[in-house]
């Protein structure tokens, strides 16, 4: 993401390039989110979540919102790091268990872990005033005015995000106790060395959003004026030249405020914000319904969706695809190269060496030890010499 932002000025002049970037970003966000909904390994879910959020950032950049993307990168860092460390804490407490189907009812045993994890989950879902809300909303607002279709995908994905992250929370910490018996005894909250970072990050995930409060909001709420758009202001020198040189999409700034872009009203902004929050809450509610108190409803739904569900759960079988079309041919080439090296190249080299040695063995046979033979050979040599000299 950092690299994309840095080289923004390279692809910015091309409308096609920008379009491709934003579409890829939007697609990634949606695609990864759907997979995250069906996974059972804590870290896998978080990994696909990361992928999805990165998609948001890329999408924003394709529409010229480089500083918005960087803002989301920052807040994402806060809550994603928190999520991962929290997951680590849980895994540590359960002596290595990573499958959320074998967790549950951990709030009492791991209060701090749960608390900070929940803060992160709220942040990523996009609930104000936590960090994720401001950054994700900035992106969605910017997208709405440029490519409403992409906005639709992004908004829907936001709902999915809320769903899958709270599915994770419910199945891990709440719902029914599905922990394996042997691990129960091991259950313990992590030491302060592990909890301290969680707390710090939770704090950042809570207040981090205020780094980039949009201007219209800052004016509305008293006291926020000073913090208005601090981050974009800070990053402005980096992207200013690119933006000035650009047209249309490239000139986009926070919330569409930039040259040549009108049509954005405060009301529109508020409306979009409300919509975002609504989607987030809906996602959380849906997650609670399915997994809050045991997963029979989820299981029935999964069964009902059948092969479609299985496809998503198996991550669209992309790994298998890669294996088939990339890895297998590659290994084949490696084996072929090895065979070539051993049977062709080595053959040639060794043949030369062996031929030389055989020649040596043959020549050595002439050294008979017989003085008469030697003298004869010398005599022949002299005759040959004479003949040559006389002829020429």
């Amino acid at each position, binding site marked *: 993401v950092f690299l994309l932002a840095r080289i923004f000025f390279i692809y910015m002049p091309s409308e096609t390039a920008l379009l491709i970037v934003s579409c890829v970003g939007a697609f990634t966000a949606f695609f990864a989110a759907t997979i995250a909904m069906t996974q059972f390994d804590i870290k896998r879910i978080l990994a696909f979540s990361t992928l999805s959020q990165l998609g948001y950032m890329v999408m924003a950049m394709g529409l010229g919102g480089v500083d918005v993307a960087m803002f989301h990168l920052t807040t994402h860092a806060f809550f994603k790091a928190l999520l991962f460390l929290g997951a680590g804490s849980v895994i540590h407490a359960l002596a290595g268990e990573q499958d959320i189907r074998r967790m549950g009812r951990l709030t009492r045993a791991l209060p701090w872990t749960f608390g900070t994890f929940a803060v992160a989950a709220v942040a990523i879902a996009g609930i104000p005033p936590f960090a994720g809300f401001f950054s994700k909303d900035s992106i969605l607002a910017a997208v709405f005015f440029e490519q409403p279709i992409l906005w639709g995908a992004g908004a829907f994905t936001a709902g999915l995000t809320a769903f899958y992250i709270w599915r994770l929370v419910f199945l891990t910490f709440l719902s029914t106790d599905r922990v394996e018996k042997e691990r129960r005894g091991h259950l313990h909250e992590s030491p302060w060395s592990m909890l301290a970072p969680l707390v710090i990050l939770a704090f950042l995930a809570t207040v981090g959003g205020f780094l980039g409060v949009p201007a219209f909001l800052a004016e509305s709420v008293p006291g926020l004026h000073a913090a208005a758009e601090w981050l974009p202001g800070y990053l402005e020198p980096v992207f200013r030249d690119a933006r000035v040189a650009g047209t249309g999409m490239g000139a986009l700034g926070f919330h569409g405020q930039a040259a040549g872009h009108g049509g954005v009203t405060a009301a529109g902004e508020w409306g979009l914000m409300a919509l975002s929050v609504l989607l987030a809450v809906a996602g959380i509610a849906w997650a609670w319904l399915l997994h809050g108190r045991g997963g029979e409803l989820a299981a029935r739904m999964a069964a009902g969706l059948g092969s479609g569900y299985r496809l998503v759960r198996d991550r669209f079988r992309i790994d298998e695809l890669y294996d088939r079309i990339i890895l297998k041919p590659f290994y084949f080439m490696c084996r072929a190269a090895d065979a070539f090296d051993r049977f062709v190249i080595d053959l040639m080299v060794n043949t030369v060496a062996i031929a030389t040695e055989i020649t040596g063995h043959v020549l050595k046979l002439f*050294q008979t*030890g017989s*003085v008469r033979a*030697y003298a004869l050979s010398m005599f022949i040599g002299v005759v040959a010499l004479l003949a040559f*000299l006389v002829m020429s």
Partner: protein
Amino acid sequence: MNEILTPAIDWAMVGPILTLTVTACVVLLVAATPARRGPLPFILTLAGLGAATGSLLALWERSVHQSAFGNMLVMDRAALYMGGIVLFSALLSVLLSRQYLERVPAPAAEYYALLLLAAMGMLVMASSNNLLVIFMGLEIFSVALYVLSGITRDWLRSLEAALKYFLLGAFSTGFILYGMAFIYGATGSLDLLACCRQARDLLAGQGDSGMALVLLLGLALMIAGLAFKVAAVPFHWWVPDVYEGSPTPVTAFMAVGTKGVAFLVLLRLVTTTFGDVLVAQWTMVLAVLALLSMLVGNLVALVQRNIKRMLAFSSVAHAGYLLVAVAAGTDLGTSAMLFYFAAYMLTTLGAFGVASLVAETTEKGDQGYGMERYAGLSRSNPGLALAMSVFMLSLTGVPPLAGFVGKYFIFQAALQRGLEGSRIFLVLSVVGILLSVVSAAYYLRVIVTMYMVNPEGERPRVVTAPDTGFAIAVAALGLFYLGLYPTAVYDMTRSLHTTLQALAALWLG
């Protein structure tokens, strides 16, 4: 009463030769006394060699061309350089011999005397411009070496070596003499310089054309005879058997000395006498000899398991490299040959020296020259192993050792001729370099055996006397010196080619 007019004798000129002769006689006298068993012969020999070297060095400072005895003895730079090499190698050989002689059934005092006489003969041959004096020197050292190679006469191998050397040596001496006779017949002079003028006249068409043919035959026969001494193919057959059978320090001296002076005479012959006559012919002849020597020497050395035989074939190969330089017939070629010869001297003496130490020498015979004897030498004698590695690497031609510099010069000379249009030299260069690579296989095999092969059982430590160790160390260090600072020695060889040709010009002009 008429006074007997004595010719003016330049005593300084014959200083080295005279010193060696006198010392040899003294040692022979000592050999008749009970003192022969003590250290006296050894000390006397060293003293004599030292004195000879001193007088040689004194001659270096004098004028570039000095002659005595009616131009029969010529102590020009070339003669002094090769003479220096001969004396240096004699010194090192003597140092290597003492420890060896303690274990062998050979009369030590006579050994030293013969060695001194051989050195003297080599000096005579090197510093002469007269065919007959060349022959005289040749015979002196040849006969001395025949005896030396068989001096351990209780050993069958040694006798075999001596007899083979004698028979084949006599055969080749016949060639040389016959060639000299033809040249004398064609040119009417024994002096190389005078021959030069006559040769040119003959081949320019003046004089009897039949004599031109005779001259040609003479050249051919002389090259053949010298090629024997130099160990060029197809005159090299004696080398493996004689090198293997002779006592190792003798082999060392033989390998260096005879080759050196024979090469020098060959050089004089083709540069002075036949400098600009028949050039294409003798170049081709020498080039072919070089090619065959490099091929046979390297390829057969590859499959030897006895280190003395391996070194013998390696010296055949080196004769090939040196012949390339001589065949080039340029200033660079001459300098390259002489410089590389200095490096060759050090490696040969050093390698044979180590071989003589590592071997198992008893009253009964000389064993332990098989390659397996070197396994684990790095652990039992790290110093010797290191020295041997230096010698092997120099023979291969690895920088920064002298062997690399020498080979570089030689191939530079060859390529110079080759790029001028002489295709045979391109062939020689390519083949020579490829064969140098092949030679790495059998030289490095020794190093690998010493450092990476485990001996069966415990390898006993080789006892090295201080003088032997000193000689080996000098050889190894000398290789580094020559390799890193070649200029000092190289300058001595510079423009010798032109000098040798200039002598001819003097006479012609």
